[in-house]
């Protein structure tokens, strides 16, 4: 069952991520992004991070993508004539960089994990792992300062967005 759900989540995530990159219409990209974020939320659930899965649905798929859709509406963007209309040389270099990044990350993450630690879950989780309570305890005890900094960051972002978009008198 877990294997089946993992396959479902990961395949949907990868296919919809590709669809984000290859759609001509930004609205379609945003909708694919929602699908991708939801399937990553499923993977979060499988990894025992229930609080983060809920947050992923609410904050990412709910708020951030809606923000994207609003801006698409405000910009009134048309379908692009071509998906990748950059110069051929630039495309080649980009593909090479993408391949290099993919190989590097795969090598470090996958081979590294397999080689260092026998590629298995080192710890068994308890029932309270990843609940709001356990994450919140950690967040408000050990990471309180960082939490406050994050809230200031969000405040600055709100003020910055308002100041940027405001029409000059």
């Amino acid at each position, binding site marked *: 069952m877990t294997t089946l759900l993992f396959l479902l989540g990961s395949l949907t995530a990868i296919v919809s991520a590709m669809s984000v990159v290859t759609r001509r219409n930004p609205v379609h990209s945003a909708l694919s992004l929602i699908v991708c974020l939801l399937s990553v939320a499923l993977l979060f659930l499988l990894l025992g991070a229930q609080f983060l899965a809920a947050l992923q649905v609410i904050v990412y798929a709910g708020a951030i993508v809606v923000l994207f859709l609003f801006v698409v509406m405000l910009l009134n963007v048309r379908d692009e004539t071509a998906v990748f209309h950059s110069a051929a040389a630039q495309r080649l270099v980009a593909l090479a960089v993408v391949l290099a990044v993919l190989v590097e990350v795969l090598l470090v993450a996958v081979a590294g994990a397999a080689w260092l630690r026998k590629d298995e*879950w080192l710890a068994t989780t308890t029932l309270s792992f990843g609940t709001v309570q356990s994450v919140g305890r950690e967040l408000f005890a050990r990471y309180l300062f960082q939490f406050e900094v994050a809230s200031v960051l969000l405040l600055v972002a709100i003020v910055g967005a308002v100041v940027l978009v405001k029409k000059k008198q």
Partner: protein
Amino acid sequence: MDVTVSRYLAVSALLFAIGVAGVLLRRNMLVVLMSVELMLNAANLAFVTFARMLGGVEGQVIVLFVMAAAAAEVAVGLAIFLIVFRTRDTTNVDEIDLMKW
């Protein structure tokens, strides 16, 4: 098939590579920002995988901060796109060369 740590990391690496491809290949600034979101999400998946692997909750706390940073980045980024579209009437990143010397 046994679902091991490296399978999750492989999914994360693939998502990240797709995000890099989107940033480098697409010229629409909205799609570029969405690809950045994809990359952040891939990093989040790796964080959660490591948190599960080591049985600690710290990795999940960091994901919370990444989400906050992503929200801030999207808000400011989209505001910048709006002004650029107002003044230059384009969404193509190649045509936004105001700061090019």
